[in-house]
């Protein structure tokens, strides 16, 4: 068996297994036993994970043998082709497993598998168990298509697919109106971003004539050319494309200004929050940026925008998380903030650092969410758990406590935990970016913002940790009413009634599934960072090569084949990396320390009544209110306006007018149908008369086909028709009446010409076109000769023109590039029929117009006369040596 062949096939099955799982559970799940649903739902993902693992090790082997930019590809089928002008752009469904998509696939299937296993226990009592696994499997399939797609359209299928699954899973408990609304909000906000992705895709397609990532990246260096919207120059193609794609990323990856959906997305079940809204889907924006890193690297402007937006998102989201009281809500803002870190890395050219943070973040954030979910599950909190009612869970739920603690340390960037490595890389990237941009202060600004955000991160995470796990359990003595909620199926919260009761006084410890998954993720949160030991080794002044990677940077080496990375050069680079490590570690220490002092030592509680700036933070900087006042109300006003137009203009005037027209016509049409036989007979007579006229008169149908100077004229046949030709239209008949002559040929000479014409040999639409020349001047427009016709755009933009002068055609080339008879055209050229001018991208031939007329007579003695014109292309009057050299060899041979 061919190992490589199996790997290719495995790639397809990684995607197909979850898809089949979704289909099977979707169709049969509601009738099937729960264990069968579990087997299909979890088993398919487990299979995908195993196959991913297999492909990954196969890729490792290939990389060792063939080099860094090797990839496993599987071309599944040809989907469709686009045609852009004359070039065909084939869209193939091709899956690629290279170093970047390999890492993403490992994260998605690995974390995905763990979360599936976790869901077995977490969702056990939910009546929508099969539906949940259907959606989750569908999400896995979509996400894997997004990752593996080798071209933008295939990626976009996955992109939309994960958006759909996100919507379905946020609104999973759709009986609750606000949950369903949260789903809609996520979907609509994502649509705004998706339109950016589409436009970006089109821009790249127009510029590179391809939609394959490889082709686009290969052509990235040519994207500095300006991009025109109509005639308006928008900026460099790379900038336009990057910013449009980044708009998509702000939607999918919850960046400013489109981050508002992600906190609301916590309405979905907690495993969904962990898988989709923390570990995988929201990072697909980072993935897309890394996938197209050469394009992004082409535009310093776009990179600066991305970096600043990312850093600001990190800061703003972290600041909101400082004062929130719901566990999942804090974690949601934390996710937004961490995504901001990733985009700051992308924007500063540290793409590998960004994807590194995606990878480490997947572990500790999944662990945090699942831990939060486990807490909620244990205390029977529905929707979300309020930290003010928790506390002291350290002893009650030890497994959750320990895994939560290591994840908090990891996300805070505590040294040697995974988050420390990736955050250090990001901070280093920001510092390096001071050399990347012409404005060095931008890099420092990003660095400062990120350090501030990291400080807040450490603070709010440990605030959460201390409030939940230390102190005393504050909900134990609240109403006994909570008991009744422990019945099966109670995880569906009643509508409009969320978390306003006390929690279970005796939190139960999680079973094997939840505890096991949390433990695995907790270990991951600690050790995941070891794949890039460079920061550590650097700080320790050790220089060793591990596994063939320079200085322990296994990560960067691994990705070097697929992701471009800004490599700083120059003095002081080493010193700057200390700054990154020091800044990050100081931020961690400050944040943790403050949280320790306030919430552990002093035992502070969240304020019951928030005031001042805290209130602004509590209300999320009033962003939702701002959007509501501007965009939502604006579109509502637009809708009211459109409705008014529909009501008064369309329905009121246009519909009535058309109805009136119809009734008028029907009134007219029903007049003859009056039941009076005489009028029917009269109409019949009229009809018969028309038919009689048609039959008693001959009909000509004169048409000419020219080959050079010879024209063959043909006309229609008819009963008893006789023809008489005046083939040169001089007023005298050239033939006698004849029943046979419905066709005639004639070779036209110079004297027969009655006018001149321009023949366009294939304009931009590829069609041939004829323009008859009269006394006026024919000016060629850009639609005829295409863009770029000017010889020198600086000198002037007067288009070329033609006009008739006596028996010559005068061609003024004006500011155009033009060639006549194999050489550049003079300012004014005098042309004759048969000559050819090349103007811009268009070939213009000069033709002559000839005319013929014909009389047709039928046996009723009626005669019809017809005259027709046709353009001929006579041989050039004079042939010059240059022209002869220019003609193709076949014609040259006839000479």
């Amino acid at each position, binding site marked *: 068996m061919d190992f490589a062949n199996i790997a290719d096939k495995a790639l397809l099955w990684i995607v197909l297994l979850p898809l089949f799982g979704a289909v099977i559970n979707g169709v049969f799940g509601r009738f099937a036993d729960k264990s069968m649903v579990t087997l299909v739902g979890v088993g398919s993902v487990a299979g995908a994970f195993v196959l991913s693992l297999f492909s990954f090790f196969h890729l490792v082997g290939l990389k060792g043998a063939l080099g860094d930019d090797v990839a496993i590809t599987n071309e599944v089928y040809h989907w469709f082709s686009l045609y852009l002008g004359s070039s065909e752009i084939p869209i193939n469904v091709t899956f690629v497993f290279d170093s970047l998509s390999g890492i993403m696939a490992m994260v998605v299937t690995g974390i995905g598998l763990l979360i599936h296993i976790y869901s077995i226990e977490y969702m056990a009592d939910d009546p929508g168990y099969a539906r949940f696994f259907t959606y989750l499997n569908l999400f896995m399939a979509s996400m894997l298509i997004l990752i593996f797609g080798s071209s933008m359209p295939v990626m976009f299928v996955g992109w939309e697919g994960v958006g759909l699954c996100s919507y379905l899973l946020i609104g999973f408990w759709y009986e609750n109106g606000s949950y369903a609304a949260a789903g809609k909000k996520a979907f609509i906000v994502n649509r705004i971003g998706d339109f950016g992705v589409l436009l970006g895709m089109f821009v790249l397609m127009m510029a590179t004539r391809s939609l394959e990532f490889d082709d686009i990246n290969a052509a990235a260096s040519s994207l500095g050319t300006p991009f025109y919207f109509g005639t308006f120059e928008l900026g460099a193609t790379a900038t336009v494309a990057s910013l449009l794609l980044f708009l998509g990323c702000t939607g999918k990856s919850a960046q400013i200004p489109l981050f508002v959906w992600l906190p609301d997305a916590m309405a979905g079940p907690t495993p969904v929050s962990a898988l989709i809204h923390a570990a995988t889907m929201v990072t697909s924006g980072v993935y897309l940026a890394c996938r197209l890193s050469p394009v992004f690297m082409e535009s310093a402007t776009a990179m600066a925008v991305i970096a600043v937006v990312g850093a600001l998102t990190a800061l703003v989201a972290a600041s909101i998380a400082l004062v929130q009281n719901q566990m999942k809500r804090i974690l949601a803002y934390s996710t937004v903030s961490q995504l901001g870190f990733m985009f700051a890395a992308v924007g500063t050219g540290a793409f590998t650092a960004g994807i590194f943070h995606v990878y480490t973040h997947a572990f500790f954030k999944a662990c945090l969410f699942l831990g939060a979910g486990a807490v909620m599950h244990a205390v029977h909190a529905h929707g979300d758990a309020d930290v003010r009612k928790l506390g002291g869970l350290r002893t009650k739920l030890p497994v959750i406590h320990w895994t939560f603690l290591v994840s908090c340390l990891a996300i805070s960037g505590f040294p040697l935990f995974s988050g420390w490595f990736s955050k250090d890389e990001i901070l280093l990237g920001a510092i390096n970016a001071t050399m990347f941009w012409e404005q060095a202060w931008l890099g420092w600004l990003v660095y400062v913002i990120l350090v501030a955000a990291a400080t807040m991160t450490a603070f709010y995470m440990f605030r959460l940790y201390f409030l939940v796990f230390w102190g005393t359990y504050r909900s134990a003595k609240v109403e006994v009413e909570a008991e009744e909620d422990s019945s099966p199926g109670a995880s569906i919260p009643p509508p409009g009634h969320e978390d306003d009761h006390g929690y279970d006084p005796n939190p139960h410890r999680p079973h094997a599934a939840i505890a096991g998954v949390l433990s695995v993720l907790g270990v991951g949160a600690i050790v995941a960072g070891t794949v890039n030991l460079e920061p550590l080794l650097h700080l320790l002044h050790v220089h060793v090569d591990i596994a063939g990677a320079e200085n322990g940077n296994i990560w960067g080496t691994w990705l070097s084949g697929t992701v471009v990375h800004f490599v700083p050069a120059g003095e002081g680079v080493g010193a700057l990396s200390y700054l990154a490590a020091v800044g990050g570690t100081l931020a961690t220490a400050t944040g943790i320390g403050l949280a320790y002092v306030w919430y552990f030592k002093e035992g502070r509680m969240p304020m019951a009544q928030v005031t001042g700036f805290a209130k602004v933070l509590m209300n999320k900087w009033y962003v939702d209110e701002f959007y509501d006042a501007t965009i939502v109300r604006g579109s509502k006003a637009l809708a009211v306006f459109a409705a008014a137009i529909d009501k008064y203009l369309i329905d009121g005037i246009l519909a009535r007018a058309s109805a009136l027209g119809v009734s008028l016509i029907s009134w007219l049409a029903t007049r003859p149908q009056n039941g009076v036989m005489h009028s029917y007979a009269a109409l019949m007579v*009229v009809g018969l008369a028309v038919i009689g006229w048609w039959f008693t008169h001959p009909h000509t149908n004169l048409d000419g086909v020219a080959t050079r100077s010879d024209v063959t004229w043909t006309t229609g046949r008819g009963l008893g028709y006789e023809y008489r030709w005046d083939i040169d239209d001089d007023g005298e008949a050239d033939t006698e009446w004849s029943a046979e002559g419905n066709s005639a040929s004639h070779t036209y000479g110079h004297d027969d010409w009655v006018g001149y014409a321009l023949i366009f040999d294939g304009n931009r639409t590829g069609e041939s076109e004829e323009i008859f020349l009269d006394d006026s001047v024919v000016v060629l427009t850009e639609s005829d000769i295409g863009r770029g016709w000017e010889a020198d755009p600086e000198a002037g933009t007067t288009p070329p023109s033609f006009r008739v002068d006596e028996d010559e055609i005068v061609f003024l080339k004006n500011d155009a590039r033009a060639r006549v008879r194999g050489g550049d055209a003079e300012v004014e050229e005098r042309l004759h029929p048969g000559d050819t001018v090349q103007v811009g991208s268009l070939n213009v031939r000069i033709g002559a117009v000839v005319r013929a007329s014909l009389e047709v007579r039928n*046996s009723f003695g*009626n005669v019809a006369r017809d005259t027709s014109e046709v353009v001929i292309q006579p041989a050039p009057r004079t042939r010059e040596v240059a022209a002869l050299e220019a003609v193709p060899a076949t014609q040259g041979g006839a000479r």
Partner: protein
Amino acid sequence: MSTGGDFLFIVSSMFALGGAVGTVLAKSPLRAAMSLLLTIISLAGIFLTLHAHLLAAIQLIVYAGAVVVLFVFVIMLLGPESTTPAGEFRGLMTRTASAAIAAIVTGGMAFSLVRTSMPYVNIHQCPEGAECGQFGGVVGLGSELYSNSVVPFELISVLLTVAIVGSIAIARGRTQAEAKEVRERRAARAAGDADQAAREAKLTAEVSAHGGH
């Protein structure tokens, strides 16, 4: 064409046109029938100028001898009622419009057809006893009728039989016994309808009474 033929054509066409106008304009149907007879006889003359001797004879026998006589019989049968009262022509509008349509159609047709010309074929130059000399005669037309056109000819006999049966069926009317039977049937149906209506009315009343509770 011979001068005699031209003369016959002109005279016949004058009479034919006069007869046609008379047919259309005559107040009394009897006068119209007589004018039609004149037209038909004139057209027989036209047929003669066209060397259609047998057809001219058939025209006289069938049209003048049968169709016009049938018309006259019916007019006699209906008596003075067959003459519609004064103001028999339609209103001025209808009359003008119809006349205009017919005039335009006629004029257009005549104008476009009058220039038709085809070479004159002199049938009389056929050799003695040859078949072409029999053009329009009993032998020529008859042999054509019973060879190439025998199927349509037989179908015409079927058509005429159907027409006779149809005419009898339409014109015969009902005997007194039949008419009585029809009257009784109609009365019974009307009674049934009334019954049905009464039942429905009762039902409606009941339903509305229940709705009133």
